[in-house]
Structures are given as C-alpha cells and as structure tokens.
C-alpha cells in the first residue's frame, strides 16, 4: 500500500507520521507555536527528511486536530475523535474505552468491537480538565513537563485543588507552596484533580474494558498512575501516545481507499 501522511495539528504540539499498512514508519513532533500553516509545512518537510522520503512518495496527506483547517496541502480534515479511535485500534485492538488527554480538552471515547465510536464525551470550555492545567502548574512550579510525572510519584500527601479554574489553580498552587506543600504534593494534587474529572467523564460514557490513555497526557506517568488508582485498573498506554491521532488520521485515509474511494472514510470534511 501507498504511504500516507497523517498530521495532527494540536493546540500545543503538532504531530506527523508516515504510515504504511496501518503501521507508522516515521514520527515527528514540533511545537505548534502560533502559525499552524507554517508549522504544518515545516513538520512535513522535517518528517520527510527524517524518513528519507520526498513528497512524491506520499500518496495522500490528511489532517486532524485543532489547526487542521490550516494544513494547506491536505485536502481533507477528519474529526480527531474518529482518528483517536482508529489510531488506538491499530495498536490495541481490544480497547473499548479511550481516555484522550490533549492540551485543551480531554475526551473519553467508547468503541465497539469493530473499533467504531459508539459514544464520547468531552471536557472543555474550562481549562481545568485537560493537559493545560498541568502545563500551567508545572510552569509556575518551574518544572519541566517531562519531570512532572515522575516527580509527582514521590508525593505522600497530594494537595486538594478546589478552585475550578486552571489559571487560578496556579494561584492556589502558589499559596499551597507558601503553606509548605512540596512540589511533589502539588503535582500529585493536579494529577488527582484531573483523574477525578476523567473518572466523571468515564462514568458519563460508561466504561468497558480494555481502557487506554492517549494524547500527550499519556506521557505523564504521574497522571496515568493517578487515573489508574482512581479507576482501579491498569491503563494501556502505547509507546507514542501523543501520535495516536496522527496515526489514526492516516489510517482513515487507508480505510477510505480500501472501501473503494479515493477519499478517506466518511467522517471527513473537505477543507475549503
């Protein structure tokens, strides 16, 4: 089968993959920055370079994510929820529930045995329930995102976050520090707050095992463990959780071809 490029232009990071037969053969990630159009262009170039390919080798490019509408060279955008479903299924076919923690939204998606979406729910409008909350707190604690997860594991006494606002969660973190709470405890508190939100979302869609975590949140071991603790079971997390949607986007294109069309499967909209 031909090579397909999937792109996930997220609100925080842009991810690109090249997929052949449902398997990614190259990955690349860039911070999204402010210019989605430019980042998509750069992502494509660097990804191709990484894979040692040229544009001519790519049969189709398909985009998803917050900035998908800005990918000038892709004719189609697909819903990230469907991408997430396709992406996870290609890695863990047994998954029926996905917790997708992105920067500005957290979504819980339920799948049927064929990997199709049968329910989903999204936490948004307020930034408290998503990766962004963590970014903000890590920033104020002057901790690198990469270290937030491992660090929080050392907490003996996670603080309880009470404000509903991510931005003010920051102030709360500050005042907790001043009351003597450790960074570990605060991070663990954020993870716990997110885990509570996530468990609410999971309740809303109804859980079915297996359950996976995807999105950038999956990179955070502290968050993964908190969610596991809250829900009472182990989560499946792939090696590259952040790339799931990009992989899924490419697979949607493959599926479309398989279904006999040159278009990705239904569920796509044309970028105009």
């Amino acid at each position, binding site marked *: 089968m031909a090579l397909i490029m999937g792109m996930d232009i997220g*609100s925080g990071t842009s991810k690109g993959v090249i997929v052949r037969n449902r398997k990614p053969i190259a990955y690349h990630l860039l911070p999204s920055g*402010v210019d989605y159009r*430019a980042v998509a262009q750069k992502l494509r170039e660097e990804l191709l370079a990484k894979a040692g390919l040229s544009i001519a080798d790519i049969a189709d490019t398909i985009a998803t994510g917050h900035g998908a509408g800005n990918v000038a060279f892709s004719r189609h955008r697909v819903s990230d929820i469907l991408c997430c479903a396709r992406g996870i299924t290609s890695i863990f076919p047994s998954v029926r529930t996905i917790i997708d923690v992105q920067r500005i939204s957290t979504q819980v998606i339920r799948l049927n045995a064929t990997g199709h979406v049968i329910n989903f729910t999204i936490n948004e409008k307020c930034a408290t329930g998503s990766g962004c909350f963590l970014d903000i707190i890590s920033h104020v604690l002057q901790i690198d995102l990469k270290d937030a997860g491992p660090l929080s594991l050392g907490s003996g006494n996670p603080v309880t976050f009470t404000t509903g606002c991510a931005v003010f969660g920051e102030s709360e973190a500050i005042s907790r520090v001043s*009351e003597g709470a450790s960074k570990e405890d605060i991070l663990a508190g954020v993870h716990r707050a997110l885990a509570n939100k996530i468990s609410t979302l999971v309740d809303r869609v109804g859980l079915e095992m297996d359950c996976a975590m995807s999105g950038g949140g999956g990179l955070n071991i502290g968050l993964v463990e908190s969610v596991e603790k809250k829900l009472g079971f182990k989560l499946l997390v792939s090696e590259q959780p952040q790339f799931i949607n990009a992989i899924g986007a490419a697979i949607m294109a493959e599926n479309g071809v398989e279904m006999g069309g040159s278009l990705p499967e239904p569920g796509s909209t044309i970028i105009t």
Partner: protein
Amino acid sequence: MHEVFRDHPIREGSLIYFAGIDLGSTMTKVVIVDRDGKTLSSLVGPTGAEHRRLANKVMADALMRADLSFDQVSYVVATGYGRINIPFADRQITELTCHAKGISSLFPGVRTAIDIGGQDAKGLKIRNGKLIDFVMNDRCAAGTGRFLDVLVGTLGLRIDELGEISLRATHKLPISSTCTVFAQMEIMAWLSQGTPLPDIVAGLHDAIANRVGKMVKKLKIEPEVVFTGGVAKNIGVVNALQEYLGLKVSVPAEPLLTGALGAALLGKELTLKAMAEGKPIHEKELRLAESTFFHTENH
C-alpha cells in the same frame, strides 16, 4: 531582580518609620514611609512560589535600600492576597482599604478607583478618602492581569511592551472567549491568519476593559476615577478603559505601589493614633519575637 525606588533621601529627624507590604498574587510590593507619610523607599519584586515564603527577604531588601533596620520600623501592615502569610506584620488589612487609602493620599478628590492586579480586579467607591463600597471579581482569570500575563507568552512579547504595541493598532480585534485559556486559542488562530500583533493586543485590552468596566459600573461611577494596580502601567488598558467608561481616568505615577503605600499610611495612622491616646501600639512580645526571627534571617 527587584526594582527599587528611592524617592526621598532619608531624613535625620524622623525617628519612626512605617512599612506597608503588599503581597500580591504576582508582585510583592513594599513601601516605607516616615511619620509625615513621605515615602522613603519602595520595592517591587515578583511574588512567585518561593518568594512568598521569603516575604521577610523582600522586606529586608526594602529596609536595606532605605538604610533602616527592622527595629526602626514601628508598624508593619500587610495587605494583598498573601497578607496572612507575613509573619512579621503587626496587622493585616485588605488591599481594598489599603488601595483606597493609598490612592486618596495621591488623589484627594478620587471618588472611584479601579484596581486591576494579577489575580483580581476591584472597583472602589471612595468618599473623603474613605472606602464606602466596592466590587470585586474572582473565579475567572479573564479580566485580570493574569489574562495578559498568560497571553503575552503566546504572543511572544513582554508584559511591559503591550501598551505601546497596542497604540499602533488600526483595527481592534474582538476577542470572544471569556476564558483566558481559550482566548489564547483564539489568539493563536488570529496569529496564524497573519493578523497584526497590535490589533490583537488592542483587542485583549478591550476585553479586559469591558469586563472590568462592566463590573465597576455597579458602583455608579463618579469622577475622579483613578486606575491603579499593575495593569494600570499598561497604557493600552488605560485608554480602553477610558473609552469604555467615557471618562478620563488618572493613573498614579507608580500604580503597583498604591496598596503598599496605603498599608504603610494606615500603619502610620494607627500608630500615631495609639500614641496620641497613650495606648500600646502593638503587642510587645510578639513583636520582639518576630523581629529576632527577622534579624537572624538577615545576618
């Protein structure tokens, strides 16, 4: 990286001094005044997670700049969001009352004051130097300095550039998101469409001015209106607010400091009143214990 303002040379004759410390969510401000209410020194530093615990360090710096020792300070009033976390303060007074005091000392005719700080925005109704009513926002970071603090990062700018940049706007962008985080997304979309920075910044200023202006209208605004707090340093917000309210707005020379100034002045009043009445100024033991603690930290 503290900014220091030494407004007056220290005068020999005045033996007692008063300090106001405004531990804000973003900035920590200290003002030291003498018994005439003249500012001897002032200091602004970021609050930050660590600084809050080290409030006395900030205080020490301010004292150093004023060439004073803590013993020479008769009374310390703490104000601001973190006022309860200042161990050496003699008294805590809310920033509402302190700003009202500080502003009135600078603008005796003030009737309405607007304070936009890092974490909240307030409207104060003042008559004859006294606070008689107020409104405050909370909960949502939009409409506070934090809104801009978060967004400057997105724009790749510094907070103190915003005002100037917005003056170059030709068309103010409407920002529809009420949430800071989502406004950020919106801005990114604008940026990616190549919208000029000044227009975006001006839009942000409008967003703040509208939110805060709307809230302050509850007080039935009467001039003279004074705008203070860190955000008042931003000429763009000042203009936007004037436009929204349809009134001229005065800004103190050092808007960050009005809370700390008011705190110091209130401390002075309390002390002088107690002295005049022959009452003890404050509880001695506590004060001694604290000051020793303070000194050991410094030497």
